[in-house]
């Protein structure tokens, strides 16, 4: 399930931001710092995650850097889903 979700999120990010994980960009890379995600793309990404996985992020979560890398995003979404 998590694996499938991860692939889905990875695919969304890769298609939206036109790059492939692997070439110097890992699951742990901070996608802001690498200039991959901008403000517009960030809002698209959050909206997608909330809608697609039926989760809601809190302000504290936004502020605690949990949505900056693929692995953080996947962890956060799966934790939220398991609490449902």
């Amino acid at each position: 399930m998590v694996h499938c979700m991860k692939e889905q999120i990875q695919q969304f990010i890769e298609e939206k931001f036109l790059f492939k994980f692997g070439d110097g960009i890992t699951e742990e890379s901070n996608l802001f710092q690498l200039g991959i995600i901008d403000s517009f793309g960030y809002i698209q990404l959050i909206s997608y995650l909330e809608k697609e996985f039926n989760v809601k992020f809190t302000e504290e979560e936004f502020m605690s850097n949990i949505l900056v890398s693929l692995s953080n995003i996947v962890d956060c979404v799966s934790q939220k889903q398991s609490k449902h």
Partner: protein
Amino acid sequence: MCGIAGFYKPFKRIEDYPRTIKTMLSLIQHRGPDEAGYYLDNYCGIGTARLSIIDIQNATQPFSDPGKRYWICYNGELYNYKELKNDLQNKGVIFYTNSDTEVLLQAWIYWREGCLKKFNGAFAFAIYDTQETTLFLARDRYGKRPLFYSENNGEFIFASEMKAFLGYDSFSFEWDPQQLTSILALWTPLPNQSGFKNIKQLPMGEYLVVSKKGVSATRASYTELNFNTTSFVQTQADAVKQTRALLSESVKLRLRSDVEVGVYLSGGLDSAIITQLTSEILNQQVHTFSVEFENKEFDESCDQQLLVQHLRTKHSSIKITDRDIVENFPKAIFHAEVPVFRTAFVPMFLLSQKVRNEGIKVILSGEGADETFLGYDIFKETLLRISWNNISDQERKNKLEKLYPYLNHFSTTSQSYLMGLYQQFSIEKLPGLFSHEIRFQNGYFSTRLLENHTHPFKEIYRLIEEESYYTELSPVQKAQWMEFKTLLPGYLLSTQGDRMSLAHGVENRCPFLDPSIINFSSHVNLKFDDGFNEKYLLKEAFQARLPKQIIKKSKFPYRAPDSSAFINYRPDYLDLLFSDTELKKLEFLDLNFIKQFVQKIFSSPSDQISTKENQTFIFLLSLALLNDYFLKKEGLAVSMNSRDIESILVKVIDMRTNIT
């Protein structure tokens, strides 16, 4: 206003000199359609295509001192020429004309490079000393007038626009991928960059000396942008009064002209102030000009009309459609000469045509107000990010609300998301570039057009390291400095300003970019306000003279339709982006990325295309077109080359000897 060009090379076949200088001038004839002239001797050729503004009869160029030792080719205006002339007359210098050209030349003869600090103007000039066979070139302190040069194989050439080099036989254009990486990341060329190998810009506030010894060019700076100030005011009331007085004086200086001066009226605060002051000073109806947009997202015609009625101006406007942008983009980019990140310069190309058709040669405009009086959101953003970790969430939200009101994704519904974004940028990660980190990180996306896009910030780091005072500047001053060195000269004054106006022989003047105004604003900025009500002092200074609606209006940046216009109209030249053969000619591009990117742009709804994607698309399109014009020498480059300079040639000084 004028276009200047020339070469300095002792060893070339001197029989070719007249043809070469004439071809170079013909390529920039649009800058000076009234008359042309050149000086030649065995070492040097310099010429001017002139737009006559002051002392129309007597200031024909090249202009010399009475002894005919020094010859000047001059593009621009010296606004304080009357004061300098008085000063020089008191020192015994005799003048024979009423022109600022003569004042500039005599000031240089008297003070040499020391004259530059005394100049208040928009200029780029070349002075040839026939006795020493040296060439002196200089540029104004903010980069209002252009000057490009190339040193190659012992030859030195220069011109107001790079397209003049198309007329120089042994020169060929070649892209410089390292410069392009920087341009794509930072949005604009840095002050010394052109995008091409072997072409440099003389940076603003610098001069250059070319001497016969190996044709060596020595560059030096005569001013620095350190925001030191000699102003002092104690109360806000005094600051408001002085703001009005200084701006009034600056407008007055820029109304010195022997031809009628018009004003660009955008609908915003800055041009409204200029129009109000111009009406007050001239005490007559002012001719104003505006761009309207069919697409309401970009249109400010309601505010323009409000001002036209309030200030009782004679008004002319053009209404821009998406089709206008698409049809005129190729011509406008040829004039711009450098890769661009937005299309907003295209309407300015059409507006200057309208101005010229209505018989106006000189225009005042509001450029520089946002940099000088902290009008841009990037200044508020910098203030917010500096304080981010010391303020409450509520305060963060209150301040975020004041940022980028014209961007949909900055609406209050996205505020929680934006909190997370700004959290990421609350600590400096690119040393010295804190204020612009978000912009530059977004710009990094555009560098992916290039196969090798490493080190996009290398050149900007080198530039700030050269300025010893930079580290002492406050975060907001660093943001100002960055604007003064990148977007202002690299796009607003050049691509959107000088190049578009002069494409149709119209001279633009910018009263906010006066040394006395910048000296004053350096003292009063953030002294009486917290920076979140942008241009607070300007608003206070003109609230009694302008409609309330204009004073209260939030900053509405001048923008124009981007990728969607091209996708809707699909002009033929878009084929350049779909053809592997064409794209492969730009061998430094990353074709795989470009294919994916172009596919995404053409298959996504326009509201799903981000700002940085729009910018990247415009960059790509401009690169492809410029490649045709400058490297392949096709299209416009050919038609402009064949312009007839002979019909406006009024002065030829030919001192060549031993012609075979």
